[in-house]
């Protein structure tokens, strides 16, 4: 009889599903600081960097012969690694093969989290002047990482909340960077204007601008709020981003904009904050930032258009 009750307990053990396990790990990985005792490239990654051209050629052959193992290896690649474009391609295939829009959105969110984690580690290396690449500077790697993240955001079925969450984290990661690089995600080399990634901040540090492939994303920080404007307009392709004058006009007529608190500023905000700009009677979303010691519930405003 005791064995029977033990059997019941054993068979009702709550377990993580594969998706839950992967999703929780993605969030954990975002919070892992790679500098406990110094972030090091694995010997394998160093070998790949040292022999990139040979590796790229071999990759095609190996992929054809033993696709599974190569795919696993590619998934560990980071922006700037030879296998990184393959990693992205695999992700795009997985998104497109997903059974439903919901599944596609969940996958895209997980991949965006992965991109953020990669960006975090690369930015940490850049700040520590511990460049891990022999043939690519850190700005280029940051550019590729940001570009890859924006691509996931552009091509995905992510929910608005998930997308806004990613923007909030992106702001935190890059808010003290200023880079202007032209990179090709496939080769890591200078390419053309359409592959340009430019991160700019004004003197007050309250505004960041990212340009990539004709999409201009502006993230503003004011009074503890983050506001995102995205413009998809060819006119911006021919114009340089204004210098650090802080006088750049930001139009409210852009195609998309969202206001949110920053993870950093929320530390000072005891509880929820009211958004000051209420002209457009926006919808309020709760956003949970999962990095760091504590999770913070945010209030976010955005247009519904």
């Amino acid at each position, binding site marked *: 009889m005791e064995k029977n*009750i033990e059997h019941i307990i054993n068979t009702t053990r*709550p377990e993580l599903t594969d998706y839950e396990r992967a999703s929780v790990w993605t969030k954990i990985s975002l919070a892992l600081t790679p500098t406990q005792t110094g972030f090091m490239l694995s010997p394998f990654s160093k070998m790949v960097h040292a022999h990139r051209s040979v590796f790229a050629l071999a990759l095609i052959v190996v992929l054809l012969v033993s696709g599974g193992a190569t795919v696993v290896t590619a998934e560990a690649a980071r922006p700037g690694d030879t296998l990184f474009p393959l990693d992205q391609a695999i992700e795009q295939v997985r998104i497109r093969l997903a059974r439903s829009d919901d599944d596609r959105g969940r996958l895209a969110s997980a991949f965006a989290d992965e991109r953020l984690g990669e960006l975090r580690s690369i930015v940490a290396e850049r700040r520590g002047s511990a460049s891990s690449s022999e043939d690519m500077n850190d700005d280029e790697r940051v550019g590729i990482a940001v570009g890859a993240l924006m691509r996931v955001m552009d091509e995905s079925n992510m929910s608005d909340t998930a997308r806004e969450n990613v923007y909030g984290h992106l702001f935190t990661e890059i808010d003290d960077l200023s880079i202007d690089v032209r990179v090709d995600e496939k080769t890591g080399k200078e390419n053309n204007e359409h592959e340009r990634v430019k991160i700019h901040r004004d003197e007050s540090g309250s505004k960041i601008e990212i340009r990539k492939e004709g999409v201009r994303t502006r993230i503003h920080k004011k009074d503890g709020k983050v506001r995102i404007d995205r413009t998809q307009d060819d006119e911006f392709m021919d114009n340089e981003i204004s210098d650090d004058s802080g006088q750049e006009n930001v139009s409210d007529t852009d195609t998309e904009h969202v206001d949110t608190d920053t993870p950093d500023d929320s530390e000072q905000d005891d509880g929820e904050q009211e958004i000051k700009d209420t002209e457009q009677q926006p919808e309020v979303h709760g956003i949970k930032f*999962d990095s760091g010691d504590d999770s913070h519930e945010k209030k976010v405003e955005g247009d519904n258009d």
Partner: protein
Amino acid sequence: MATDSENALERLLAESARGDTASFKELYELLSNRVFSYVRTRTGGREDALDITQQTFIALWKALPGFTYQSDPAFYGFLFTIAKRQLIRTYRDAENAVVPLEREEDVPDKKGDTELEDMLLRALTSLDEVSREIVVLHHWSRHTFGEIGEMLNMSESAVRVRHHRACATLRGTLKEHT
């Protein structure tokens, strides 16, 4: 004498403490279900259990550089202490919810994902704290009685006796509800 699994765990802990995220991921794969099933009995829903599992591993990552490995059970005791702290912190921070571990039956809306799990979660609240800990650690977190004894600072035989009585109590409680 150290077994292979002990050596593997010790190695993963040492590498993770040095900042090796790949090793920490292996550690996570090894332990995530143990932690999740443990915290699941103490939370009101699956989502809360997922959040606390996540927080537990983040806290573990930060704590590992200061941890000295002595044995597997000692580490498990360390891990579940972190999980308990995260549970306390979560419910302390939550609005109108103060849940001392001694009174977990007060956790609101403790629902399982299946009817049987739901019944079992409720039946577990009929046990005292130590007995519930033993049942969950043995059946859901898959620890041996010896390991649990070391974790809870009890003899193995005492753990076995408490487990036997707990199963009898659970059997009676479940009968009442069926």
